[in-house]
Structure formats: structure tokens, C-alpha cells
């Protein structure tokens, strides 16, 4: 028994690596001495959806950028491990990482209008990953692009193939973005606030579409969102981030219905619900990166903070089926 646990601690266990698609372990990212991501630990099984929830500046998008390898050493300082299908991403050569991008890992940007190149037709931009990663011929690319456009609900895809991005509406542009991200049937889809730039009426459609496609392809997905309720609704699990740390992580229902961390509780009371008398905002804001408190990063804003919170960082503990980092869990 003792032997087994020693083994489990020191050697990356193969079976475990196979079981989860993505293993993030004690991953830290520093930029100009400021710790943007602080010892992030996460895992994602095949077919699972995870929501990264938090205010802007929490490091959600940074984590997504690191996962797809657009933020790497030496541009930023990195510590810890990112394992994708058992491959250590942090040690991967740039040329090898490039083979994953847009292929095994897809990324949907927040603002499709800005993320589509204005000088190339949408057909060309959908065809790019097909050509690069799957080596399809020009005509096969076009045929597949039409299929993809159809799958993301673009009417008359054959006509739209040669349209430039500015000729399409915002919702259509985001559909194109989704088609590009899913072109090579990625095993992991990263969606960075995929609906924030869209009209409210289209947001639900687009979210439904992404979930639908992810399920159809049996991919895993990480949604970067700032809305806790939306996250709980669309994702199997939720990781609440605050100032570069994960403060609470667990199954969506439990995190939403019975949040343990004071920050999650604060986020929940910010959610507008019918019949609720008042909103309770969280006082203050995320401290600047170069002035992070030594102890719990949320302590200055926390209603439950005691002396220890300002001095020592709380260890992550397992409680009620989830991971929480707080000294005072009820």
C-alpha cells in the first residue's frame, strides 16, 4: 500500500495519463516577474466540458493561451506541467506544438470580427487548417469547408465560401470561427468568451451550437466565461479563478448551488435572479499583478478574512467532491 502511493506520487502513471485528456499540474506563468497564473491544477477527461469562471484579469484567457501554446517560454516564464494526451506540452518543440494547434486543439476567439483576417475569404480561412494538418487538396478543402459551414448552420454555404468576413453578420462570423476551430475535429476545444461580443438574441444560439458540435465530435471543451450561472448551465464542471489561482473547482451543480469558497459565494450573489431582493456586489477589485497579497489573494476583499488569510496561502483541499482553497470553509 505504501509502495503504491510512493509510486503514484513520483512517477507519472501511464493509465492515469491515458484516462484524462488534459492534466494541468502546478502550472505557473510569470510575465515580467508578475505571477499571472499561480499553481493551476486541473484535469479534463475526454468528452468533458469545463468552465473557467472569473472576473476579467483572473487569468482565464491567459490559461487558454498557454494551453494552445500561444504563450510559451521564453516569452513568459513557465513552471509546472501541461499534459495533453500524455504529451508534455511545456517541453514540446515549437514545430511539434504547431501540429497540435488548430488540429488537436482548437480555439474560438471572443471577437470573431477581429479574429478573421479582413483580406481573405472565409472559405480560405476555413481551408487553412484542413490543408495544413490534413493535407487536403484545394478542391477537397472547398468541399470540406462547405460541409463545415453547413454544420455550423450557415445558409447557402456554397455562396458564402467566397465572401469576405465584412460581408457577414457578427453571428455568422462567429459561426465561421467555430467552423475553423472544429475543422480538424479537435480533441480539445478552447472557447474564450465565445458569445460576449454578440447580440443577446444570438448568444444562446451560438452557445447551443458549440455544445452541439462538441458533443457530436465527442471532444472535450474548456469555456472561458465570466458568468457563473451560464458556466454551470453549459459545463459539466466549473473552475472558479481569482487573480491567477483556482479557488474552487468541482461539478457545476454543486459549485453553483452550494459554493464553498467566499469568492464563489460572492459571484453567485452577483447573479441576477427573478424575485431576488437585491444584488450583492463583491467590494473592491482584483489587486494589480505586482501588488499581490502574500497569503490568500482574495483576502483583501473577503468578508470572512482573518489574520491568517493575509499571511499564508491556503492549501487546496478536497471537500464535498471538489477542490477548494480557503482557510475557512463552512
Amino acid at each position, binding site marked *: 500500500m505504501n509502495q503504491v502511493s510512493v509510486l503514484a506520487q513520483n512517477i507519472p502513471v501511464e493509465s492515469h495519463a491515458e484516462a484524462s485528456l488534459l492534466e494541468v499540474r502546478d502550472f505557473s506563468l510569470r510575465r515580467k516577474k508578475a505571477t499571472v497564473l499561480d499553481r493551476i491544477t486541473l484535469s479534463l477527461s475526454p468528452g468533458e466540458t469545463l468552465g473557467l469562471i472569473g472576473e476579467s484579469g483572473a487569468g482565464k484567457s491567459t490559461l487558454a493561451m498557454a494551453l*494552445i501554446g*500561444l504563450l510559451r517560454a521564453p516569452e513568459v516564464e513557465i513552471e509546472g506541467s501541461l499534459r495533453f494526451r500524455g504529451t508534455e506540452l511545456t517541453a514540446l518543440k515549437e514545430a511539434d506544438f*504547431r*501540429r*497540435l*494547434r*488548430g*488540429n488537436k486543439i*482548437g*480555439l474560438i*476567439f471572443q*471577437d470573431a470580427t*477581429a*479574429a*478573421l*483576417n*479582413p*483580406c*481573405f475569404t472565409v472559405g480560405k*480561412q476555413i481551408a*487553412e*487548417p484542413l490543408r*495544413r*494538418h490534413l493535407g487536403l487538396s484545394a478542391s477537397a478543402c472547398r468541399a470540406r469547408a462547405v460541409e463545415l459551414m453547413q454544420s455550423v448552420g450557415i445558409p447557402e454555404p456554397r455562396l458564402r465560401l467566397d*465572401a*469576405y468576413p*465584412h*460581408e457577414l453578420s457578427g453571428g455568422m462570423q462567429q459561426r465561421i*470561427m467555430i467552423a*475553423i476551430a472544429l475543422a480538424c475535429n479537435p480533441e480539445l476545444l478552447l472557447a474564450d468568451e465565445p458569445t460576449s461580443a454578440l447580440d443577446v438574441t444570438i448568444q444562446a444560439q451560438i452557445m447551443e451550437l458549440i455544445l452541439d458540435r462538441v458533443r457530436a465530435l465527442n471532444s472535450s471543451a474548456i469555456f472561458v466565461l465570466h458568468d457563473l450561472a451560464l458556466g454551470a448551465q453549459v459545463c459539466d464542471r466549473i473552475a472558479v479563478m481569482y487573480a491567477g489561482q483556482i479557488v474552487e473547482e468541482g461539478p457545476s451543480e454543486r459549485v453553483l448551488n452550494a459554493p464553498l469558497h467566499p469568492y464563489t459565494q460572492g459571484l453567485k450573489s452577483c447573479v441576477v435572479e427573478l424575485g431576488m431582493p437585491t444584488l450583492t456586489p463583491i467590494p473592491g477589485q482584483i489587486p494589480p499583478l505586482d501588488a499581490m497579497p502574500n497569503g490568500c489573494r482574495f483576502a483583501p476583499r473577503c468578508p470572512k478574512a482573518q489574520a491568517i488569510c493575509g499571511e499564508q496561502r491556503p492549501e487546496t483541499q478536497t471537500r464535498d467532491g471538489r477542490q477548494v482553497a480557503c482557510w475557512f470553509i463552512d
Partner: protein
Amino acid sequence: MWQATFTKLGQTLLVLLLVSVASFSFLKLAPGDPVTIMLGSDYSKASYDQLTQELGLDQPVIVQYGHWLANFVRGDWGTSYITNQNIFELAVFQALPVTLTLAAFSLLIALVIGIPTGVMAALYRNSWVDVLATTLAIGGNAFPSFYLGIILIWVFGVGLGWFPTLGFVAPWDDFWQGMWHLALPAITLGAWYVGLIARITRSSLLEVMGQPYILAAKARGEPGWRVVWVHGMRNVLMPLITVIGLQLGGMLRGAVMTEVVFSLPGLGMMITSAVLNREYIVIQAGIMLTGVLFVVLNLMVDQTYQFLDPRLRRRK
């Protein structure tokens, strides 16, 4: 699209009309009487009056202008008193091709050197590459082209004897001889443009590389060179073309200097010697031709711009 083109053409014609009025009245205001110049110092009153009448100089100015413009449009630009050459032929068939060849070759050199320099400076921003490129760019811009031309002649023409110091051989007659003769003048004229192109390329590329669509291209697994040269540079082309177009006037001005320094029989040389000889009708032709050239080139740049930027094209 068609309406825009017609509007543009109308504007162009208006500009040309203004150029013609300016060049016509400029010569009316210039000192010296063309009749006395043509007759020499010894002439009778009768021959003076006869020539004045022949040249139409006794008629009202507006009529003279009308005649002159009509003749100009017809291609009847008169005959040089000094060489007795048909000025239309001299300007359009002899001088213009030389100037265009020089300008095109200089632009080509400037693009081939300026774009990669600008790209390198942008990619390795604030490194020694950037400092070197920026220094060269500003140096090229600041260095007077006639002086650079003289230095090049002195070093590579006279000193090392690698290149001819003057003269023009048409590249369409003898390509290598032509290139050989054009090398120094084109470098002289292009040096000024290199700096401009490198600087615009650098600043535009820096801006473009910060755009989300560049990140998106990387996220699709595009290799670095394609991200820069295809996704990035495609968007840099538009500001680049605009600046090249805006500086075409400078190019033509530079061509005059360069042609004089290297004795190339182009438009600049033609105008310069006409000024020295007080051959007013040749100057007039030169001004008009330069004006037309400038306006036509600008029109072409405008059209290119529409062609390059899909957002300016009309929706289907």
C-alpha cells in the same frame, strides 16, 4: 464601383485642366519674349509682326490658351527651335520611357530592399537589427540624392570602374547593357525610397501583428513565416501602397536630379536643358507631361487600393 470610377475620372480631368492653366499662364508671366529669342538679335519690325501673328501671340490670351490646349490634346506640341525636333516625339517617345524605366527600376530596388528590412526591423523590434535598419532608413531619406549619385559615380564608376558613369541604354534593346547603365542611377533614386518603405513596413507590420487575426492564424497552426508574410504582409500592403502613391511626386522630383547627375535623356533632363535654353514650349510640354504622369499614376494607385482592400469593394 463604376460611379466612383467616373467621379475619380472627372476629378482627374479637372486637375489636369488646372495644371494646363498653370503651365500656360506660368509661361505668359515668364520674362523674355519668345519671338525675339526665335528671331535672334537682328530682326526687322515686319518679320517680328509676322512671327507674332504666325505664333498667334497677337490674339487674346484666352484664345491663345484654347489653341494651345487643343493642339496639346491633339499631340501637336510644336517643334524645338534648337534641335528642330518634334516635341511630342521627343517628350513622349524618347524622354518619357527613360524616366519611367528609371522610376520603375528604382521602385523595384526600393521594394526589394525596403520591405525585408522593414519586416526584420519589426520582428526584431528594439534589437540591433531594428537600430541598424532604422538608421539606414533615415540615412537614406536624409542623404541628398544628387550627392549620393556623385559619390556612387566617383566610387563605382571612376574609382573601381564597375559601372558606366553616364548614358542610357534601353533595356528593351539590350537588357544587360540597360541594367548595367541603370544600376547606379536606380540605386541613387531608390535609396531615398528604401528608407520610406522600410519605415512604413515596420510600423504597419507592428500594428498588424498585434491584431487578433494574427493570433488566430497562429492558433490554426500556421507556421511563423506564413503568419508574417501572408497574414501580416497582406494587410501591410494597403498602407504601403498609399504611402508609395503619396510619394510619387517625390519620386519624379528625384528622377530629375538623378537624370541630370547621370546624363540620362529623360523628362528631367529634357526640362532642365529646356530651362537653360529658355525653350518655353518644351518646358510647357514637360510640365504638362509630368502633370499627366503624376495624375495617372495616382489614379492607378487609387484603383490598386480598391483592388487590394476587399472592404472597399462593393458587396456582391
